[in-house]
């Protein structure tokens, strides 16, 4: 039913300059911060100081405190762990599964391909967020539902992309040349097709990690993501939205963290795409 997937590869922006490098550095910092949060966070994420609830940012609490007097900065740092790990795990699952299915469908072709692709295309009827809500309705709230929802939601994209790459590569003459030497399907698929198909799929996976972070945060915001006391960016905003007028900083910081990481991912990914494209152009001309 879906005619064709708009190739994310087409979305090259203006020439990127140094933005991707800056974004890459920012991403490194973000991952480091998430990893090191137990050591660098100024406060434990769950330490409640009710006497200091709803404090505006100060020297003691750079980002302020929430309604239980917990340090917002510490919770943002710990939240990065939750958000990033959920996004990375789900996208890894989705991407590897999609690559496997897409590679096989693209290589085999015929009715198998049509039926499998039709089944996978069904997921388009449920936009990411609806799919996630459906799974939450079945499995209950929590990180498992979120991971599963993200993995299923983006499966079609990775499958389609890998499939189209494989199908295009299959027509390349170098594949015919290998066949001429007597190469079998394993050699063709693993040595000729997949290595050439991987790079763009991985870049798109990286870009999609940004979307996954957004989705994870949205579910958290509905109170359906990682459950308290585990801190997550979306979850912090969920409780913070009730204090929107009194303590806007509680939602301001986690939101900014989400926006910053997603923007960094996109800038970096775009940069890699441009680099790949330049390389490809050099090869074909």
């Amino acid at each position, binding site marked *: 039913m879906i005619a064709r997937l708009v190739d994310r590869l*087409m979305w090259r922006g203006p020439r990127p300059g140094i933005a991707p490098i800056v974004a890459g550095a920012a991403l490194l910092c973000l991952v480091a911060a998430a990893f090191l949060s137990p050591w660098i966070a100024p406060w434990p994420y769950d330490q409640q100081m009710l006497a200091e609830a709803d404090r505006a940012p100060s020297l003691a609490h750079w980002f302020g405190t929430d309604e239980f007097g917990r340090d917002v900065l510490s919770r943002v740092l710990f939240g990065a762990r939750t958000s990033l790990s959920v996004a990375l795990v789900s996208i890894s699952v989705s991407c590897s599964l999609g690559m496997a299915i897409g590679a096989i469908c693209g290589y085999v072709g015929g009715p198998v391909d049509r039926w499998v692709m039709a089944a996978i295309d069904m997921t388009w009827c449920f936009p990411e967020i609806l799919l996630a809500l459906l799974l939450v309705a079945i499995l209950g709230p929590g990180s498992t539902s979120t991971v599963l929802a993200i993995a299923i939601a983006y499966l079609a994209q990775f499958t389609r992309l890998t499939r189209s790459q494989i199908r295009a590569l299959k027509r390349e003459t170098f594949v015919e040349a290998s066949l001429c030497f007597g190469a079998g399907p394993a050699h063709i698929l693993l040595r000729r097709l997949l290595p050439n198909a991987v790079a763009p799929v991985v870049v798109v996976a990286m870009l999609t990690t940004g979307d996954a972070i957004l989705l994870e945060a949205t579910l958290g915001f509905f109170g359906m993501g990682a459950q308290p006391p585990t801190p997550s960016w979306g979850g912090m905003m969920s409780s913070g939205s009730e204090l929107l007028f009194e303590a806007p900083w509680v939602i301001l910081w986690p939101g900014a963290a989400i926006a910053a990481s997603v923007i960094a991912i996109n800038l970096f990914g775009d940069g890699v795409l441009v680099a790949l494209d330049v390389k490809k152009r050099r090869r074909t001309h």
Partner: protein
Amino acid sequence: MAKYAIRRLLALLPVFLVVTVIVFLLIHLVPGDPIDNLMRSGSDPAQRDALSRAYGLDRSLVEQYLAWMGHLVRGDLGTAIVQRRPVAELIGENIGYSLALGGLALAFSAIVGIVAGVTAASFQDRVADRALMSLALVGSTVPSFWLGLLMILFFAVQLGWVPVSGARHWTSVILPATTVGLAGMALVARVTRIAMIETARQDFVTLLHAKGVSRFTIQTRHLLRHALVPVLTLLSLRIGLIVGGSVTVEYVFARPGLGSLLIRAIGQRDYPVIQGSLLMLAIAVMLGTLVGDLLQAAMDPRQREDDRS
């Protein structure tokens, strides 16, 4: 064209059936006894039996599905557990708000997105292009609920231009529609821009210049027409973005609508309502995609032939 439309519509039927199966299976996939999921706990056995019979839970899954579909085509979506009212009625009350929000958001994404994309393409790699594309990047990456909350803080609380929440006054739709539309707009702008640039490199555009057609005419008449095809593909594929975005934003702005209904129902484990609203939202996505496909085919003669072979 009419034949193409009918073929497209028929192709949608199996998809629709699969969607209904998924939605139907929902209550069976939930851990625990479906009856428990269909009613409040602590009800007496007689009530349980009555409900069990009403839902046909003593029969096989296939029979249950057929019975459920039978009700569905007659517009009977069951009864809400919490509100004890027909689900169809609840949906009827809410759907108008969602349509208004979705429609406005869609219009906003399309119009502003195309204008921004064309402008960026005309100034490729110059300041205007960079500025617009940076804005588009931010638009597609900022979480919509966060943006919604910030907009409430600024426009509703600080400036007091529009109501904070609800849907009592028509102005209340402005902020939600902008919030939902922004993500779509960013995507439309990016696709319009790249489609214009890629089309401009094609031979037939060189020939248009060689015919003496003015640059302005080429940009506005010929290139734009080509750029609209991928934009429509994008919009019809990503109609889910608008539908999904509406769900989130309705919740943020405490606006009535299918999204709020769904999220509240999930919180209350009100499965008939979950089923009903999920089904309606999925249908919205399917129809949106269909309309997009048809518009594309109307514009691009090659599309109609492609699917026939």
